[in-house]
């Protein structure tokens, strides 16, 4: 047994405390041959370099993981992003997923909801209920969580520009279930900067968007202390075509902007930082992805400690959700996608993720069918319960290749962040379009590599099959838009419109001033003001963002 004082200290303090509070899942973990799986394998000699760079799990710099026992203590949250057509349909899928063993909900909203338009707006044509649930008023939100006790689940909502409104609706739904905001657990994405860079569901210009974000953070730090108020996302940056280095660097540069904004708004970094989570992509370069996650954890801990002077260890921990890479899925030989997803999911697990979404085999063709979603979930379960990788913490530590690659990734990411800082920070880089251009460059290079065969994609540019069987396709209810619009019109007719106008006027006043908008948004939501109406107030005061020219 290793007797190094640092290790002994870790064992006596960090590990002991955790084991007391959260015992491991099993009394002992064994290999297939029957001997015990080591909790934490260590080098024979622990030297300063090891302590500085790698250390012990649950302890600075967190290279080996944010918890001391990792998956021996608790498995990652298996969280499948889902949502389509109406709130009622989505509700059915959530209940199905909960029955099948998912441990957290992840709500997808349709595009009009994400961009702040009601379902009857002209621009919503064809998009209602398409990529997620359509939400116009709090009645839709109530239907979405019908029969699901909100104090028993953790809910992640992929929502950015109109976060305040959806969060308010969630709070009001809980209120009707007799649950206080403080009892609610979950995450809102609330990461606006990456929308300008990659995902495109922005509404307002960057500066007012950041103000909305800080209002939410500030309000939640008081009222919803269990809720993660921001999930800084590299996932979509990667999907837009970035490299792994760019994914982490741009995400961290965004995160630093948020931290600075929160500090400027008077929040203590140690109050805010522990409620900040991350969301990354697990792509196909297996070993680089693992190194990426480890490097990211170490770099983030350093940034928080050195740049922002965070003191609480919880502020230094990079907690992240991972989703397998959608852009690597092919429309050809769709079953191959199951294998891709398996490898990507395994990389995420070996990289120490806190929660995971595995993509379904048919996603290059359609919204996933229930069968495909089940296989995707089973993939996670096989990794968790059969593969044995969860029996030990950070099994790849100490591999020369992995450690060297981890160092290299950290250097490259750090250098790119420095370049952004030197050029005036992330908002300036977004407004000038330079970040977007760098991603476009990577994306174009990637595509050219596929085109000229330098990068092999099985079934697409190698080992193709001439006869492709096209799999069945998910059918969206044709009447969804019509039904949703009728429901909305009915509410508009039945609600107390004077009350709505009054609540919106109060909101406008708050938005124009410096007051926190959250209580006013909640009030408007209670009066059945629609998402579009509330966003119109914000649009009126803040203006709208326009895309930059690109290359």
């Amino acid at each position, binding site marked *: 047994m290793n007797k190094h004082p640092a290790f002994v200290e870790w064992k006596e303090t960090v590990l002991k405390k955790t084991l007391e509070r959260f015992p491991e899942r099993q009394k002992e973990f064994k290999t297939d041959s029957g001997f015990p799986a080591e909790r934490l394998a260590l080098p024979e000699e622990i030297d300063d370099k090891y302590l500085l760079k790698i250390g012990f799990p649950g302890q600075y710099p967190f290279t080996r993981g944010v918890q001391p026992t990792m998956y021996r203590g608790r498995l990652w949250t298996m969280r499948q992003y889902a949502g389509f057509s109406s709130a009622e349909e989505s509700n059915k899928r959530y209940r199905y997923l909960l029955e099948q063993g998912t441990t957290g909900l992840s709500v997808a909203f349709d595009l009009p909801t994400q961009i702040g338009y009601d379902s009857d707006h002209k621009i919503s044509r064809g998009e209602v209920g398409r990529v997620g649930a359509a939400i116009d008023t709090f009645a839709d939100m109530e239907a979405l969580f019908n029969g699901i006790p909100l104090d028993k689940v953790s809910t992640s909502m992929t929502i950015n520009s109109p976060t305040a409104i959806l969060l308010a609706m969630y709070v009001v739904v809980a209120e009707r279930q007799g649950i206080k905001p403080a009892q609610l657990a979950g995450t809102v994405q609330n990461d606006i900067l990456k929308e300008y860079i990659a995902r495109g569901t922005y509404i307002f210009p960057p500066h007012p968007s950041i103000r909305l974000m800080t209002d939410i953070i500030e309000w939640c730090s008081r009222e919803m202390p269990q809720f993660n108020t921001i999930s800084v996302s590299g996932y979509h940056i990667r999907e837009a075509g970035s490299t792994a280095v760019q994914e982490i660097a741009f995400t961290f540069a965004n995160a630093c902007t948020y931290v600075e904004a929160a500090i400027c708004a008077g929040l203590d970094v140690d109050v805010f930082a522990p409620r900040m989570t991350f969301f990354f992509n697990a792509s196909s370069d297996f070993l680089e992805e693992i190194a990426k996650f480890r490097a990211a954890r170490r770099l983030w801990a350093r940034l928080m400690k050195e740049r922002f002077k965070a003191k609480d260890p919880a502020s230094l921990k990079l907690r992240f959700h991972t989703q397998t890479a959608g852009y690597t899925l092919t429309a050809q030989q769709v079953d191959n996608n199951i294998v891709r997803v398996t490898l990507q999911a395994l990389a995420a697990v070996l990289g120490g993720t806190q929660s995971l979404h595995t993509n379904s085999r048919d996603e290059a063709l359609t919204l996933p069918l229930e069968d495909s979603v089940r296989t995707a979930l089973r993939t996670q379960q096989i990794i968790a319960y059969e593969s044995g990788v969860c029996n030990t913490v950070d099994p790849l530590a100490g591999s020369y290749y992995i450690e060297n690659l981890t160092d290299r990734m950290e250097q490259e990411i750090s250098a790119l962040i420095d370049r952004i800082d030197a050029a005036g920070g992330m908002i300036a880089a977004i407004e000038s379009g330079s970040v977007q251009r760098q991603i476009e460059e990577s994306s174009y290079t990637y595509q050219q590599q596929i085109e000229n065969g330098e990068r092999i994609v099985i079934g697409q540019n190698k080992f193709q099959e001439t006869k492709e069987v096209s799999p069945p396709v998910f059918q969206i209810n044709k009447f969804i838009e019509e039904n949703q619009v009728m429901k909305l019109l009915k509410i508009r007719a039945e609600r107390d419109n004077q009350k709505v106008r009054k609540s919106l006027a109060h909101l406008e006043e708050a938005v124009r001033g410096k007051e926190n908008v959250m209580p006013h948004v909640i009030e408007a939501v209670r009066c059945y003001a629609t998402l579009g109406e509330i966003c119109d107030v914000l649009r009126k005061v803040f203006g709208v963002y326009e895309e930059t*020219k690109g*290359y």
Partner: protein
Amino acid sequence: MNDIDEIVKGIYLKEPRAIGRAISIIEDGDQRAGALLKQINAKNIQESTILGITGPIGTGKSTIINQLIAHYRKQGNRVGIVAIDPSSPVSGGAFLGDRIRMMRHAMDKDVVVRSMATRGKQGGLCAAAAAAVRIMICSGCDPVIIETVGVGQAEIDVVRLADITILVLAPGVGDEIQMMKAGIIEIADIVVVNKAECPGADSLFMELENVLHQRNCTVCRVIAREAYGIEKLAVFIGVIDKERRKSGQFTNKRKQTRETEIIDYAIEMMRDELRRRLKEYPGNYTGDPRTIARKLIDDICIAELDTSKRNCPEVFL
């Protein structure tokens, strides 16, 4: 939409399809270009004002133009925009992205936008851009704005088509020295310092004032994103326009532009003819290039005297 008379009629009726097609006919060297151009020399060309707006990437030209469009539209004017971007010297292709920032006017039929690529040739571009401007004016646009990027000779040439040239700068963006070297600053009538709220804007403004005050060039500060200073810019433009029309400078400038345009056309016409003749030239062009050139020109002149039969494309007739 292929009959020239129909197209000409359409231009005057402000039909987007006719305007768009007419510009293509000129730009692509369609043989019906000459016939088309002959029919659109309207009187209102003298009444309308052509603005040239240029400056380095990232200074916010598009935002300023957007705001100017909004300003002129509020006054009831129909506005034309010719947005010029460079062609790739390798592929000959171009990415014409100025539209993205102007999409808010996309449904306004009284905002006529045309993106053009430099297509590697200055002279030809000038001719095509000038024709596009004229077509827009005939369809009732006043003013017409020509937008170019950067500091190349092509940009300077195009901007010369304008009655009033506006150079957009911003603190920390682009190299002012480069602008001075390129001479754009010398042909500017108004220099706009955009992003006036940003650090460095004041010193840039002072510096420009110092350099430009002897030259009767106006410097003004705007924050285009918030439309701040746009009204004032429009007033400056209006004042300069009025003064110049009164003093005769406007007419002089138009005459000069006309001259440039004619010479452009002439050179372009010659170029084809010279290429053709050079191909027929005996030997491997050995000997002094200047002497050969002289001989080619002399031959053309003689041929011109000899015969009325010309091989010139109809576009230049």
